[in-house]
């Protein structure tokens, strides 16, 4: 099935005349649409009249783009089918973000397929982050190019898209700020790339939070850049990092190195602290009980909260009561 000139202008894939067949796609039978008969035909290569009707119906119900010509819509549906979407998946695609016209929908989907996603992942990405539909093909392509330049090449790019699709819709300024922050913290370019590859979620975090996490690991825990990167420091939340580190510290099992980088005990490796389940952390490293750890988390959270309140309150000194002090003297 050759796509008409209209559709071709959205979707370069169809220009080439090649027909994408994704083996798994036709077997896909999920989706939330109710059974109306058309999906039974989903293993047929092209749409049929029932699908066209069903999509028309969806558009009518949504009261958007209801006046689209059947021939136009048919071309769009054709293209989706050609890309390997089942009828059920096509229905799903149309149920997302009704305000966008069918052509735009096609264009974005096309671009995602070009970025190497299969129909399943494409649908999943759009379901999780419908705002991707707002992007133009050009924007998507541009963002992909920029991410490639940061080291998120093939393979990584698809992973990022699947796991954190919003990275494609963030303002570039935000991404740039994160990358610059890492450079300011003196991570060499290769390490920045490694961080982005192994923990792409950093792009979604606030640069100052990341910087604080870096400083915490560097100054409080005495960990160098290379180890941070290799151990996947940026995958763990700051709160959990602190919970585990301060827990060990108060147990006497972790020490901040002195100016010469020395400690009186041998600190456990960062990786062994953060890359293990909580259960193993408690059993093998802290030798402590879950009950104690849970109480500790609550106490630490309150300590931090109060430290912060104190800092922002500046000077409001003498507030501790007489009686509270009495016992400790």
């Amino acid at each position, binding site marked *: 099935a050759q796509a008409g000139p209209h559709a071709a202008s959205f979707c370069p894939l169809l220009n080439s005349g090649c027909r994408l067949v994704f083996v798994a796609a036709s077997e896909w039978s999920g989706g939330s649409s109710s059974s109306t008969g058309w999906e039974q035909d989903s293993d047929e290569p092209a749409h049929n009249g029932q699908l066209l009707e069903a999509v028309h119906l969806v558009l009518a119900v949504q009261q958007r783009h209801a006046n689209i010509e059947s021939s136009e819509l048919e071309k769009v549906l054709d293209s989706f089918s050609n890309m390997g979407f089942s009828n059920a998946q096509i229905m799903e695609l149309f149920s997302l973000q009704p305000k966008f016209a069918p052509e735009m929908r096609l264009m974005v989907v096309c671009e995602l397929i070009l970025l190497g996603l299969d129909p399943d992942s494409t649908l999943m990405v759009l379901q999780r982050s419908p705002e991707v539909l707002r992007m133009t093909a050009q924007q998507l392509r541009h963002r992909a190019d920029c991410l490639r330049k940061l080291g998120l090449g093939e393979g990584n790019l698809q992973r990022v898209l699947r796991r954190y699709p919003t990275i494609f819709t963030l303002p570039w300024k935000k991404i740039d700020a994160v990358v610059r922050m890492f450079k300011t913290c003196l991570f060499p370019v290769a390490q920045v790339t490694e961080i982005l590859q192994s923990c792409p979620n950093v792009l979604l975090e606030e640069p100052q939070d990341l910087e604080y996490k870096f400083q915490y690991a560097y100054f409080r825990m005495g960990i160098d850049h290379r180890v941070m990167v290799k151990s996947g420091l940026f995958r763990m939340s700051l709160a959990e990092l602190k919970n585990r580190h301060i827990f060990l510290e108060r147990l006497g099992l972790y020490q901040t190195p002195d100016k010469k980088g020395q400690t009186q005990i041998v600190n456990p490796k960062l990786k062994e602290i953060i890359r293990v389940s909580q259960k193993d952390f408690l059993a093998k490293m802290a030798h402590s009980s879950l*009950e*104690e750890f849970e*109480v500790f988390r609550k106490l630490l959270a309150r300590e931090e909260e109060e430290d912060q309140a104190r800092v922002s309150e500046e000077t409001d000194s003498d507030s501790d*009561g*007489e*009686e509270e002090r009495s016992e400790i003297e």
Partner: protein
Amino acid sequence: MALQNFDMNYGAQFGSLWPSIRIGLLSEQKYGALVNNFSHVGRISQDLRSLNAVDFVYESQKAALHVPWDSPVEQVRSEETAPEETRNEQLSVEKTQTPPLLSTSISPNIKCYTFSRGNISRFPPSRPDTSGILGYYLLDAASLLPVLVLNVQPGDLVLDLCAAPGGKTLALLQTGCCRQLAANDISASRVSRLRKVLDSYVPKAVGSNVRLTSWDGRNWGELERDTYNRVLVDVPCTTDRHSVMEEDNNIFHRLRMKERQMLPMLQMQLLLAGLLAAQPGGEVVYSTCSLSQLQNECVVERAVELAEIQFNISVHVEDLSYFRSVFQDTFSFFKDCRLGELVLPHLTANFGPMYFCKLRREQ
């Protein structure tokens, strides 16, 4: 400084228990609210219960009733549990309804609310009632154990040798048993703090049974020998929890080295003075808020020895394991004390450290 010292000494003393004690010391401690029987007890207790706190003294004894103890439990069972409400309103000792078995071994009328294991809630500061009296006093709940174990009886003459700032003095008065309470502390400024505490918790009439002094407790053997039924010797110590939290000017500072080295000696002298001040047959409780064996068991052993040798006084050190079993749901006790009992800090029950040992002067 303090912590380094502890890691070395307590690491050796407690072995694999030390990390969990250490983290307890370094994390926020728990308080107890000692109910002031001279205020509106019923209302105060109700307020505290509405915070989800429980009176650990009452609950422990209630639970202990179901623990069979060797002997005469059966005969006294009949008069056991009085409803708590009425219990709360009672001050006078005669009517006391503490569980019978224990009433023979625990100071009566002390009520202290705490939050259960693992609950990190705090008590709001106590507010004065219409007569200006405060409803409860916040303190480390473990510091009531020395007072409870002192087993004050109606009409007793009681000495609190190192009393300031007065948490335990106040608890002693709550028993309603002291015919006379002598509260002493060598530091005049701390005695004036103690006076303020009494002023805000105790009516004048009761306060007049309290004699405040600021003498050197070591001389009590010469001052009032063989006088008291009960003596509390709550000595100055390394205050372990305080010392790890306040890095400045704690007793582990280099400039206070001498003072620290002299502590066990001072403690021993104070305990000895306490033993001399007790009547024959009288009971003495020695307590510290330190984990150090040197300041705890060793001091007791030395004092007992010296009392025998120098003063020909024989002293019996009591076995407190029954007492420990009564309170073990609230506190985390050390199982291996040679003498006395030690409450260990623990995240889920972060009281103590509190060491206490009970001695009886033989007739």
